């Protein structure tokens, strides 16, 4: 698992300690989260994402999905032929 937490955190000029205090965990947990070594609970992932103004999908990249998540294409409009 890879994360973009560091990227988003530095964008908001937050330190690891600041983020840890905002989401109510220890700084070490943020370190392990950024390194992708810790698999957080949904609640913690949500709290981190909310604090960093991002979604969980944007922050956490799992090994079986591409690293640059692209927006899904719009579904093609279908013409319904009526009798």
């Amino acid at each position: 698992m890879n994360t973009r937490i560091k990227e988003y955190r530095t964008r908001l000029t937050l330190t690891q300690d600041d983020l840890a205090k905002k989401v109510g965990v220890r700084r070490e947990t943020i370190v392990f989260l950024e390194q992708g070594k810790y698999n957080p609970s949904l609640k913690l992932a949500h709290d981190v994402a909310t604090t960093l103004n991002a979604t969980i999908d944007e922050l956490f990249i799992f090994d079986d999905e591409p690293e640059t998540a692209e927006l899904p294409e719009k579904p093609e409009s279908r013409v319904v032929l009526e009798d």
Partner: protein
Amino acid sequence: MKKIIQNNLFIGSIVIILGLILFILIVSGWIPENNILISVCIIAAGILFVVLSVLQLRGIIEIPEVSDERILKIRAHTFMKAYLFSFTVTCILGILNLSGIFIMNSRDVIMTLVFTMGLSAFLLSMYYNRHGDIIEG
């Protein structure tokens, strides 16, 4: 947090009192076991507990207030694994005892359990904390 420290202070005081009672019982000959070292160790542990709690209350020693989900997860997993390991050791010792290969008395069994549980919990805790999360397999 203050409540936890006060509880620790109370527990430390109880341990000191129990150690003193044991010391008096040993010295007066009420208990056949005449090893005073046990009661001295209990009293020393109680004093250490009380001193640490007092230092925390006065703010001389700071302990991290946040006990986050990672720590709780590691702790729960560590104790579970330590219990399973100790249970396995107990089973093996039981089989050896029943087969007559290795006869142990109750004191040996208790000390083995305390040792295996304490040591395995300590080592696992260190291992998991170093890796940041629990690792299966």
